[in-house]
């Protein structure tokens, strides 16, 4: 290590630590799901004390967003929670639309719901694959990534990019759906629905998996509320809060779905909650497919307000007003009225909140992102107290945090 960086101050306990080993887990570690450093004090195999050290992926996104226009800052939001970029885009777009005070067409809301739920399935697939890999079931990784590939094919078809799509934009969507998209989505959903039982069967009754996850890392609802935990981790402990149902955004109140809740609060409960969420997401996607009208001339895919979204390119050739709007939007961008808003969405990890402050200029004065992984990683020392080192790996996998989301 270079002399310029000091080790983080880690205070030694009052009792004599002579029997204890202090071990550094990470930041480069196959099981920490990113660059998380856990400083563990071990008594043999048992964790006596732990301290997470984050910041190894701090990107300064909030500061960078202050020097970009609202449209440019959208691309930064993709890269925070990189397993669910469309969820972040959705949260940002809803926050900016709230700031602007505009309404978007209902069709756009349904398309956003479809994409957000597909993103949820893809994100849970990565979680399932890497959790299985960490616990030793290596083939889970290969199964899950194959399902994720067919969903990413859909995203690539609609936006050109597999992961960082920036497809959901303030004002609507980047472009309308492709002509064959709804049929392709139908095929993908049919394939996934046929495979849900297989995915349940792969791990649910596996005795090794049950042995490794049942009773491990129990989280009580009081501790969850105290630590401000949201998402599947909280729902597996009995905290009945899902933003899609309780504070509906983007037409979620038109959909019928149940929110899986468990009360045991251990890693197995978190696993079951996420598996059931995959099933519910498939149900929502099916309903959304029935509500989206196919693309065509005159079918809206964004708001009509020309001060926010650029006009269609052909209009510039004959309309002076369109030309001026186009020019203003691409050189300066739109300017929301001053004030601040807070918009939350339910990402696969939990509650993502965008607090946007506007001072009337074309750049956000402050973009604050409240990310679920930040609070969930804070919970780790509570959960791994007095457990074996092998259980630490399973608990980290079951919390499903993403360090890009945590450090921003």
């Amino acid at each position, binding site marked *: 290590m270079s002399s310029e960086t000091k080790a983080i101050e880690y205070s030694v306990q009052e009792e004599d630590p002579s029997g204890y080993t202090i071990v550094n887990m990470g930041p480069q570690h196959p099981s920490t799901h990113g660059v998380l450093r856990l400083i563990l004090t071990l008594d043999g195999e048992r964790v006596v004390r732990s301290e997470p050290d*984050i910041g190894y992926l701090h990107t300064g996104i909030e500061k960078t967003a202050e020097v970009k226009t609202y449209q440019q800052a959208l691309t930064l939001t993709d890269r925070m929670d990189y397993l669910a970029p469309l969820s972040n885009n959705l949260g940002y777009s809803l926050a900016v639309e709230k700031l602007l*005070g505009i309404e978007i067409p209902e069709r756009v809301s349904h398309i956003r719901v479809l994409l957000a739920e597909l993103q949820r399935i893809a994100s849970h697939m990565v979680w399932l694959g890497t959790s299985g890999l960490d616990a030793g079931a290596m083939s889970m990784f290969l199964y899950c990534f194959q399902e994720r590939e067919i969903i990413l094919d859909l995203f690539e078809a609609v936006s050109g990019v597999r992961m960082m799509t920036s497809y959901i934009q303030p004002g609507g969507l980047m472009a309308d759906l492709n002509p064959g998209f709804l049929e392709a989505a139908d095929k993908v959903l049919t394939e996934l629905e046929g495979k849900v039982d297989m995915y349940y069967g792969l791990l649910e009754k596996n005795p090794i998996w049950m042995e490794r996850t049942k009773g491990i890392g129990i989280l009580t609802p009081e501790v969850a509320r105290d630590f401000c935990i949201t998402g599947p981790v909280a729902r597996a402990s009995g905290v009945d809060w899902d933003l899609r149902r309780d504070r509906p955004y983007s037409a979620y109140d038109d959909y019928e779905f149940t929110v899986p809740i468990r009360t045991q609060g251990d890693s197995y409960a978190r696993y079951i909650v996420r598996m059931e969420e995959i099933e519910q997401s498939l149900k929502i996607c099916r309903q959304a497919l029935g509500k989206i009208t196919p693309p065509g001339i005159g079918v809206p895919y964004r708001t009509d307000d020309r001060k926010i979204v650029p006009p269609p390119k052909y209009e510039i050739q004959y309309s002076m007003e369109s030309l001026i709007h186009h020019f203003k939007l691409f050189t300066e961008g739109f300017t929301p009225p001053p*004030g601040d808003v807070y918009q939350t969405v339910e990402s696969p990890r939990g509650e993502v*909140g965008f*607090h946007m402050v506007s001072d009337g200029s074309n750049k956000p004065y402050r973009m*604050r992102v*409240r990310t679920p992984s930040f609070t969930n990683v804070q919970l780790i020392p509570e959960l791994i107290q007095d457990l074996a080192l092998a259980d630490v790996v399973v608990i980290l996998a079951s919390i499903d945090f993403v360090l890009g989301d945590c450090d921003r």
Partner: protein
Amino acid sequence: MTTVSEEMRQLGYELSAQFADNFLGSREDRGELTLWVLPPVWREAARFLRDAGYNHLSDLTAVDYLDRDPRFDLMAIMASHVKCDFVRLKTVLGLGEPVDSLVPVWTGSNWFEREIYDLFGIEFQDHPDLKRILLPADYQGHPLRKDYPVTGPAGSRFR
């Protein structure tokens, strides 16, 4: 666009009854309610709102208004799972002015406050372990302040 319900407006009246001069006022904008208090009653106001049903701390952050005299705006957003609503509590701080930590009210605000200290330089009293969290331990400066350049200090060896 939703509007603020009368029940939520009651919160403003109750806070004003409880804290008298330390309650600065409330503001309703785009369907959201913001309540302003002065720093000495920050922790009591948060505890009051938590006991009034807003027991989920959604976010705790700060905003830097460089051209205003109490420069920082410290803000907590609290949600109620029962009423499915959220309220924003704000206070104003000058440069170098410390404020009470919310860790006795919610343990989860520990890291939120460390992040605010790291990026803004606001100090919290009674915080168990106030040190940098996102930047290296020996980093100089507080990047999210408005007078800190985006590209960092001149002469950084990483550029």
